[in-house]
């Protein structure tokens, strides 16, 4: 029996798809845009914090480079120190610790000299853009829930979109640039939606899975009598260490390199010579007789799954006391989490993610624009609600791109040692949100013309950011390539390319605007 979709059902799905899309497209575009940028979060960090522009060392000795620094810190006996190993994308040693007064610190060390790096205060990619992606930089839990509901909406939009589309297979590769603009936009929406459909579905799904405990903490609290405070206390106790301090003073750990070497050798023995090495080394109860070391890595070779492998050593006698591997039951959820976090070392996959993420932005944006063009066809182009959605869509699409450019430009213009009541990194974030707000106001005032005007602004602002990078750091594109600073070169190339594409879009939109919207004549003429 052949399954046939009734016209009534298709129309219902069409209505659902249209209005859910209009309601959520602005937020979804912001989430997808920042998510796509976050694919290169560490590269953005290197661009916005020039002190991180280092080449990954071929090998590093924690005993000679890091240990002397750790021993001079004022640490409580039961403190924990986390040491992040330098990587290609993060070519510095990262230190996290709480001092004797309980204050938390994060320090970065030059892996070649062991000296402390005085890094530009910026939330850059791995903090601001990354946090915005899943919580929209909102206080409390509100942003989490908005993103969660938007992810659910995205999945509903994908499913309803399949039913709305009349010829899923017949029009699989169809894009007709020679047709009228409304048709071109719909073709683009269908094409980007269909060919990357599994990606567009699994990304919001895995995002929901990652944050499920934030959305529904009560389910996790059930084993603790439903009390969230007890759950928090238990989790904190787990994170602070499995072996309690003995209360007897002891010397700080020596021979950290040996623990690293033994853990790496263990993984090589189990998985072969080419397996990945440790990402982190943590020392628990640093000045206590029950001090121990945990060597940890997150991505074994040939694995997407984000699951820590840990080897635990007792510092008192140097013996291995535990080895942890994720249980098979975790494999599926770890794989889904890993595919969303994108922290694995795989450049081809990273670029594929970037392009597919951009296609998601195109899909959302073209859906928005198709709705607006349909109102023009229905002679509702000047209706108040259409003007409102148009302003919203301009701010959502070109506005957030302009805001991102302002974020980069502010980073290069604000002096490193500026002393104001407001923190330097907050100034960059203010530049982002103020520009976004201004783009909305501009769209409200200039209406249709704002499309190409904001594209012209994009065409100017992204190359300006690249130019400012060259002026303030001296690392212009050719210099970056010569010094093998690929992250900086990549950022500059993408910014220049964005500028060129935005200029082409601006010119085309200006022409299209003149063709589509003829000047309105006063009544009676």
């Amino acid at each position, binding site marked *: 029996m052949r399954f046939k979709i009734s016209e009534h059902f298709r129309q219902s799905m069409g209505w659902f798809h249209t209005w859910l899309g209009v309601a959520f497209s602005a937020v979804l575009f912001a989430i997808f845009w920042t998510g796509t940028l976050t694919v290169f979060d560490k590269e953005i960090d290197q661009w916005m914090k020039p002190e991180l522009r280092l080449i990954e060392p071929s090998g590093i000795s924690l005993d000679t480079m890091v240990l002397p620094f750790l021993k001079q810190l004022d640490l409580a006996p039961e403190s924990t120190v986390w040491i992040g190993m330098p990587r290609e994308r993060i070519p510095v040693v990262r230190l996290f610790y709480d001092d004797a007064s309980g204050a938390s610190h994060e320090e970065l060390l030059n892996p070649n000299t062991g000296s402390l790096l005085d890094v530009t205060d910026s939330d850059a990619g791995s903090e601001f853009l990354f946090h915005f992606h899943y919580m929209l930089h909102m206080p409390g839990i509100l942003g989490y829930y908005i993103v969660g509901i938007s992810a659910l909406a995205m999945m509903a939009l994908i499913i309803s979109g399949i039913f709305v589309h009349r010829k899923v297979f017949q029009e*699989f590769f*169809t894009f007709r640039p020679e047709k009228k603009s409304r048709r071109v936009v719909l073709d683009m929406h269908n094409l980007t939606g269909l*060919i990357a459909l599994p*990606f567009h579905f699994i990304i919001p799904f895995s995002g929901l899975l990652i944050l499920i405990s934030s959305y529904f903490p009560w389910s996790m609290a059930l084993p603790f009598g439903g009390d969230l405070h007890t759950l928090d206390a238990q989790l904190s106790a787990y994170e602070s260490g499995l072996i309690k301090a003995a209360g007897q003073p002891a010397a700080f750990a020596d021979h950290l390199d040996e623990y690293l070497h033994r853990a790496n050798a263990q993984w090589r023995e189990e998985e072969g010579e080419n397996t990945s090495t440790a990402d982190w080394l943590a020392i628990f109860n640093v000045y206590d007789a029950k001090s121990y070391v945990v060597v940890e890595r997150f991505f074994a070779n040939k694995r997407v799954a984000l699951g820590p492998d840990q080897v635990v050593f007792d510092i008192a006698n140097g013996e291995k006391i535990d080895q942890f591997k994720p249980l098979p039951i975790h494999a599926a959820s770890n794989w889904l989490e890993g595919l969303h976090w994108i922290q694995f070392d795989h450049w*081809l996959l990273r670029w594929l993610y970037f392009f597919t993420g951009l296609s998601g932005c195109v899909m959302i944006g073209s859906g928005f624009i198709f709705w607006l063009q349909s109102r023009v066809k229905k002679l509702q182009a000047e209706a108040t609600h259409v003007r409102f959605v148009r302003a919203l869509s301009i701010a959502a699409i070109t506005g957030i791109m302009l805001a991102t450019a302002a974020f980069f430009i502010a980073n290069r213009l604000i002096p490193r040692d500026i002393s104001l009541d407001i923190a330097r990194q907050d100034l960059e974030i203010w530049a982002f949100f103020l520009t976004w707000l201004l783009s909305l106001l501009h769209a409200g005032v200039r209406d249709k013309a704002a499309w190409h005007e904001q594209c012209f602004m994009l065409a100017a602002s992204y190359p300006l950011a690249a130019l400012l990078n060259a002026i303030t750091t001296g690392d212009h594109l050719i210099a970056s390539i010569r010094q093998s600073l690929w992250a900086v070169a990549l950022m500059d190339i993408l910014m220049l390319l964005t500028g060129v594409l935005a200029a082409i879009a601006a010119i085309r939109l200006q022409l299209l605007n003149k063709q589509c919207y003829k000047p309105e004549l006063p009544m009676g003429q």
Partner: protein
Amino acid sequence: MIFFAAIFSQLATFFLALSQTRHWKRVVKATLPAFLRFKLRLLACFLLVLSLIFCLLAEGASFSALIWPLLFFVTSLLTAMSLAYKPHILEPLARCLNYFYG
């Protein structure tokens, strides 16, 4: 290995596109014979499986589960854009297929 996986994926999407009447007509300016449609789709499926095998050999199952569909996305996009802007670049391929399988 991954280069060959991409090439096979690209060829598969070309064949899938050419197996559709509209695209065949746009490229060859003639009607697509019914028997060729089936052969093209069969060939495309074979190439997609071959692409998956090369992905698996090069990157293992964990990465291949992501790389293979994303390669399919990129190559499909390239195919759609080729058909939209430069359909004549597919003409030699279509004529070869017509000659050998037609």
